[in-house]
């Protein structure tokens, strides 16, 4: 009899090509082969793919059910290790549907069970057909190369709070991408750093990774890394302005903010009120907490009784009136508000808020 069914199926499996991961898929494939072998012994010559899959699934479920039921009887008897009698009882349970000789007997000895007799008969009658392939021990685990811990690597963790059973920090090269130059040659700075990196002690490496990318001060240890990172950033800045390093104070020449002349005069108070009202979010705050300023004209003094009167050094000589209840919208769209004015005003408001908060905290003793 030709081996038609199995050959066809195996060819089909090879042609399908897709590899599924997981131990269960491997076990299922083995079950399919075993079931196919048994069917072939019975007389089938070919299989439908779906039929074979269903059949092997049913067989697997059968095995699991036998195990479950046998375990149930074992636990019922107060044991953890399964006995042959538990297995026989499990088999009896599962063949209750079809029935076996002696199923209706209660109190029969398990050794005489019909199931066992049928099995004996089957073993005696059927030919022995071993499984087609040699199998390794299931389940199969892929050997994962685990990163050794600090202890295993023989390295001392850099800081006290890091326990030694944790793995060491990864190499900096792994997570900082080196930009390749167009001509293909690496930056000589980078090449230097890579060579020098081998000399750097592993204790320093972790601290290197923690350093900010552009340390303006520059420590003794990580200037190389900072240099390289700066080189990276310069490269990146050429390509993408958003990735450029932020500027620190004093790094770039910025024109100083010039106070507009009209702000210093009283006549500009009206404008200021208008400006105040334009910036909605700031009005109530300013009105609520403006401390006693020496140049307040109106009789209303909203400063709280217990608060200190702090005069910040940055306070510009502005005079403005506090008007409660009067909110005349006096927007001047045509006024010559320049960008600098708004910026200055915003900064002023922010400073005021900060001073108020500080006062508040000092008053309440935070």
């Amino acid at each position: 009899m030709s081996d038609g069914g199995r050959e066809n199926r195996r060819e089909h499996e090879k042609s399908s090509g897709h590899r599924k991961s997981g131990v269960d898929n491997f076990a299922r494939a083995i079950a399919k082969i075993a079931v196919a072998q048994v069917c072939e012994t019975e007389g089938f010559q070919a299989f439908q793919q779906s039929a074979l899959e269903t059949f092997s699934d049913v067989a697997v479920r059968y095995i699991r059910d036998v195990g479950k039921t046998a375990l149930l009887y074992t636990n019922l008897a107060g044991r953890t290790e399964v006995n042959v009698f538990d297995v026989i009882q499990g088999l009896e349970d599962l063949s209750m549907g079809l029935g076996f000789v002696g199923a209706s007997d209660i109190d029969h000895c398990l050794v005489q069970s019909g199931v066992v007799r049928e099995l004996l008969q089957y073993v005696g009658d059927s030919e022995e057909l071993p499984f087609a392939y040699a199998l390794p021990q299931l389940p199969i685990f892929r050997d994962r190369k685990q990163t050794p811990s600090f202890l295993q690597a023989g390295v001392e963790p850099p800081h006290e709070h890091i326990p030694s059973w944790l793995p060491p920090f990864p190499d900096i090269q792994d997570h900082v991408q080196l930009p390749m130059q167009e001509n293909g040659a690496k930056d000589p700075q980078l090449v230097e750093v890579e060579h020098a990196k081998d000399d750097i002690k592993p204790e320093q490496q972790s601290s290197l990774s923690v350093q900010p990318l552009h340390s303006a001060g520059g420590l003794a240890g990580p200037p190389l890394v900072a240099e390289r990172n700066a080189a990276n950033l310069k490269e990146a800045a050429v390509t993408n302005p958003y990735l450029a390093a932020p500027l620190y104070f004093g790094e770039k020449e910025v024109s100083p903010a010039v106070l507009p002349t009209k702000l210093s005069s009283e006549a500009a108070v009206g404008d200021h009120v208008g400006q105040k009202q334009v910036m909605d979010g700031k009005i109530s705050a300013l009105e609520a907490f403006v401390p006693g300023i020496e140049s307040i004209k109106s009789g209303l003094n909203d400063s709280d009784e217990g608060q200190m009167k702090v005069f910040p050094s940055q306070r510009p000589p502005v005079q403005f009136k506090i008007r409660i209840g009067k909110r005349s919208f006096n927007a001047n769209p045509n006024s010559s508000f320049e960008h600098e004015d708004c910026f200055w005003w915003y900064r002023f408001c922010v400073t005021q808020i900060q001073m108020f908060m500080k006062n508040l905290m000092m008053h309440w003793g935070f």
Partner: protein
Amino acid sequence: MNNHHGQSQQSSESKHDDDAALTDFLASLMEYTPTVPDELVEHYLGKSGFQCPDVRLTRLVAVATQKFVADIASDALQHCKARQASVVKDKRDKQQKDKRLILTMDDLSKALREYGVNVKHQEYFADSPSAGLDTASRDE
């Protein structure tokens, strides 16, 4: 009392016989290699919590599974042969073509139904809702 003693002796002897039969069976299992491999059975038994270091029990379960599969296969084979016989009755020309016995979903579901496993299989999947309808309604 004597009778009872005789009876108990008899039963104990039969028990011994049965025990002997079982132990012999388990011993013979070690010689008989079931088609279902041991590793597979151990893997799935382990999944359901079955803990046993004894190989003979695993072999027992393996043989039981093999018998189960063989029974279902033989039932499906009978269904298949019955179908082929009925088909051959209609057209004698196709007698030579249908000699191959193929395990189909149909036969398998019929065989499994007797074992309490309900396997219902879709006959076909339609490409669109109007597939297979009358031409009159399709034209609309």
